[in-house]
């Protein structure tokens, strides 16, 4: 810091919102005495144009080079004041806000106490402001392309959208053809369109699109790089058929002696080891299943080679590993269904005519018949909620969202294709929530003779050629027992196997339900927590085709916005390392939640684009060579010291994660709920930024209790938070600080009640414990002096 800090402090009356409770003049007089305060003023509305003018003047004319605005929450007006400062020629990161409205005047009634607290808050901000450094966001070029993992309907739609916008797309799927689950379906609800007729033209479009490159039989195995410049490593399995030469004539498969269950037909029929997944496959080329090919597994046969007229069979093909550079990634790996045999009462697997919904779809296309004897079934039971809506230990907790409508569609299809059909649907609650769904449900009852029984099926019992279904008709409060020709189970949708691996490769989080976790449930539903990586379709949770398409289009739009700008600005609030002192021990690598730190040249290097500025690494560095921009050791320690001095006793300092809990406390302020005025707040990027040193400094400067509050979605979650705080408590215990003086919790924004109860408990605990004894404080001061 070359220049001497000259702080300008502007205290807002907020038209009485602040000044009715806080004696702003007294605050001004108190803080004017602080070293380095050049200007201290109060004003009716600092956010108004004349108010902003005051700030600009002070910067331009009075040599102020640090600004503190004591007013509302920074969530309200930080950007306003930063812009004003920037216009006056001050770096916006050298402006600090002291929240004396939401966290003071609105939540306290006693004028004396509120004024004392406001003084403490402003003092803390001034001390911090003195250490503020100018920061510039980093700019990086973006690779204008996208990789899409999973080529079902979600991947196909996003690929077309992004390709049409003019960006390069790589569409990757691990199977020999694109198409996904939708290619297997017969008709789709509620319009009864032919699924394959909707999908196939798009598959062809993808294959012939100049901006889209389809890569089949491939899956990602690693990713490196940064948002905008990712390098994804793919493993591409050999097809053993030369795509350029294969004409899909099918002679090879005619003679191939090895048979296996056909995945596309849901195991109902068999295919050969050399096969094409389905007639409309894209690319329309044969592939050899190496696990079942006699030559590849046992070294004999090679019959296909003899009969292939195009000489397309190539047993010499090897597995390839290729790197693809892209700006962003879309994860659309779809879903899987549970195995209904998990639940013994459905007797799945014990009778060939007890089938899953996917098997029924294939039977519909093959011409509906019973797998057991080939006869046309007339009376069919459609059973919903197989494995859905269960408690955690029993099955999937969520509603599969498509089961009801799918069952109704399949029942209607039966009625349409079989004369004298008698379809029954056993349901828990019909969830017909989409456009045209309720009407479709009504139509199924009125014109398609579908019988509905409200009751989850209790058991399914094979009985010779027939199948008995037992349930309670809960609306009649009577048991029903009926005999059916066939039973169709709507199995729950779950995240596909390998979701965790994919999540790990791309470092995105997986939710409690096993699906990928979006960044924000409502406002950022297709973003993952990692910039430039998006997800759409069923990998985020079960959904129907329409919703999947919507999400696919949304991701395409997000990708276009992200790569289209050409460059990205990265927040300068990132970790930094003093490379001259770093010994490369690597402790920080294990702590970093975004994998933004890499080993480099005997030391480490922090990637400014990947780093989210949580600061977890800083207190963990054994040498203390890491620091966090805009929340540096110097800034944080100064603020702690400033805020802990004076004020009401016993004094409680709360370190609040600056996103979720901070917003929650603001909300408590907006609701005008009251809490003890000795609770004073310091925002931090994560409570993991706070180390032993900071706690000691707080206790040394006058704090009697400390709380650490993280958001439920913050960087330190659940056990990690508990473990971290337990460690802190242990570390300060030798200084005579009882563990009861330190408390922690995690919260969500709407739970401000919980936070206020927490504050109440905290003040009670600290009041019971009393002031920190003088000798303990002395001991801590001594230690801190020795350390510095």
């Amino acid at each position: 810091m070359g220049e001497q800090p000259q702080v300008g402090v502007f205290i807002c009356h907020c038209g009485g919102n602040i000044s009715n409770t806080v004696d702003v003049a007294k605050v001004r007089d108190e803080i004017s005495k602080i070293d380095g305060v050049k200007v201290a003023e109060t004003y009716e509305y600092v956010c108004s144009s004349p108010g902003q003018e005051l700030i600009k003047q002070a910067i331009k004319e009075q040599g102020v080079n640090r600004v503190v605005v004591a007013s509302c929450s920074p969530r309200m007006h930080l950007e306003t004041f930063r812009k004003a400062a920037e216009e006056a020629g001050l770096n916006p990161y050298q402006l600090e806000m002291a929240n004396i409205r939401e966290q003071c005047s609105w939540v306290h009634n006693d004028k004396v106490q509120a004024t004392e607290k406001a003084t403490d808050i402003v003092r803390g901000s001034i001390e911090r402001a003195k250490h503020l450094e100018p920061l510039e966001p980093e700019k990086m070029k973006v690779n204008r392309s996208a990789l899409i993992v999973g080529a079902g309907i979600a991947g196909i739609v996003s690929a077309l959208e992004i390709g049409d916008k003019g960006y390069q797309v790589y569409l990757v799927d691990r199977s020999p053809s694109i198409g996904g689950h939708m290619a297997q379906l017969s008709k789709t609800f509620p319009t009864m369109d032919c699924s394959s007729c909707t999908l196939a033209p798009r598959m062809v479009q993808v294959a012939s699109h100049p901006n889209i490159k389809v890569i089949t039989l491939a899956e990602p195995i690693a990713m490196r790089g940064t948002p905008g410049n990712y390098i994804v490593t793919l493993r591409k399995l050999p097809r053993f058929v030369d795509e350029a030469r294969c004409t899909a004539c099918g002679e090879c498969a005619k003679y191939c002696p090895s048979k296996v269950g056909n995945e596309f037909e849901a195991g109902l029929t068999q295919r050969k080891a050399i096969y094409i997944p389905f007639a409309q496959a894209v690319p329309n080329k044969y592939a050899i299943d190496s696990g079942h090919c006699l030559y590849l597994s046992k070294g004999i046969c090679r019959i296909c080679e003899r009969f292939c007229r195009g000489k397309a069979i190539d047993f010499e093909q090897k597995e390839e590993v290729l790197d693809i550079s892209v700006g962003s990634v879309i994860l659309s790996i779809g879903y899987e269904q549970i195995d209904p045999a998990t639940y013994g009462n459905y007797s799945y697997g014990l009778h060939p005519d007890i089938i899953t919904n996917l098997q029924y779809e294939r039977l519909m296309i093959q011409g509906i018949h019973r797998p057991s004897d080939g006869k046309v079934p007339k009376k069919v039971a459609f059973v919903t909620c197989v494995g859905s809506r269960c408690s955690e230990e029993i099955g999937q907790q969520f509603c599969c969202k498509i089961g009801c409508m799918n069952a109704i569609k399949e029942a209607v299809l039966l009625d349409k294709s079989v004369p004298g059909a008698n379809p029954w649907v056993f349901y828990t609650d019909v969830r017909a929530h989409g456009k045209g769904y309720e009407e479709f449900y009504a139509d199924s009852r009125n014109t398609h003779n579908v019988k509905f029984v409200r009751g989850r099926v209790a058991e399914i019992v094979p009985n010779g050629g027939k199948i008995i279904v037992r349930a309670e008709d809960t609306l009649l409060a009577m048991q029903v027992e009926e005999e059916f020709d066939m039973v169709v189970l709507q199995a729950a949708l779950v995240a596909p196997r390998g979701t965790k691996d994919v999540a790990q490769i791309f470092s995105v989080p997986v939710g409690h339900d096993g699906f990928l976790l979006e960044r924000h449930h409502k406002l950022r539903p297709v973003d993952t927590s990692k910039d430039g990586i998006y997800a759409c379709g069923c990998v985020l949770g079960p959904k129907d085709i329409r919703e999947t398409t919507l999400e696919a289009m949304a991701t395409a739009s997000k990708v276009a916005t992200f790569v289209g700008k050409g460059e990205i600005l990265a927040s300068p609030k990132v970790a930094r390392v003093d490379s001259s002192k770093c010994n490369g021990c690597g402790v920080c690598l294990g702590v970093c939640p975004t994998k933004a730190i890499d080993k480099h040249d005997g030391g480490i290097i922090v990637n400014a684009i990947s780093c989210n500025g949580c600061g977890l690494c800083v207190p963990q560095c054994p040498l203390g060579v890491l620091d966090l921009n805009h929340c540096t050791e110097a800034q944080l320690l100064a603020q702690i010291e400033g805020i802990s001095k004076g004020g009401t006793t016993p004094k409680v300092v709360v370190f609040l994660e600056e996103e979720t809990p901070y917003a929650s406390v603001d909300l408590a302020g907006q609701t005008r709920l009251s809490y003890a005025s000795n609770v004073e707040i310091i925002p931090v990027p994560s409570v993991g930024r706070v180390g032993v040193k900071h706690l000691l400094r707080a206790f040394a400067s006058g704090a009697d209790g400390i709380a650490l509050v993280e958001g439920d979605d913050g960087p330190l979650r659940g056990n990690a938070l508990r473990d971290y705080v337990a460690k802190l408590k242990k570390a300060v215990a030798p200084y005579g600080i009882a563990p009861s003086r330190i408390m922690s919790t995690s919260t969500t924004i709407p739970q401000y009640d919980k936070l206020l109860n927490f504050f109440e408990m905290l003040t009670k605990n600290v009041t019971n414990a009393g002031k920190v004894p003088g000798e303990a404080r002395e001991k801590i001061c001594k230690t801190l002096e020795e350390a510095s």
Partner: protein
Amino acid sequence: MKETGTNGRGIIDPSFLESVKKFPGGDKVTDCIQCGVCSGSCPARPWMDYSPMQVLRMIQSGLKEKALSTSTIWICASCYACTTRCPRGIDIPILMSNLKHLAMEEKVPAKIRMKPLFHKSFMETVQKHGRMYEPEIFMKVADKRDLKAIIHSASLGLRLMRKGKVGLPPKVPESNGFLVALRNRNGGKNS
């Protein structure tokens, strides 16, 4: 908490749900989604006046009197077919048996006269002898007015005795630790 009142379904006791939730396994009663698997699975369902699902609904709704006066709670044979299949993992038989206790405590007349008497006699006999003693239970339970039933039961008893299934006098278990513990439970009260 809402005040006690009626809403056309019967007398609502708001504390009923809270007290059932304190029973072992009762905490899950609000997790019931009324799917009907329990009732569809129940082999004793045809003899019940209300389905197990409906009894759970009564608990959720605070319909104490109605729940305690169902025959369902007495007919439940604790076979656990319901719990095996319940998607929410609710232990319904244990709820039923707790409701039985509550009904006896609150002196709600049971729809089936035999049942509470049988339960009571069974517990008394076991507490006295440390094990089942059929002739005594028979003596306690038999309806003195129903001569035909007495003759039927007596002849069954004689046949069992001949095969050595039932003995006179009662057999006392070798170790009586469990018996003492059982007697001391609830201060020696029947429950």
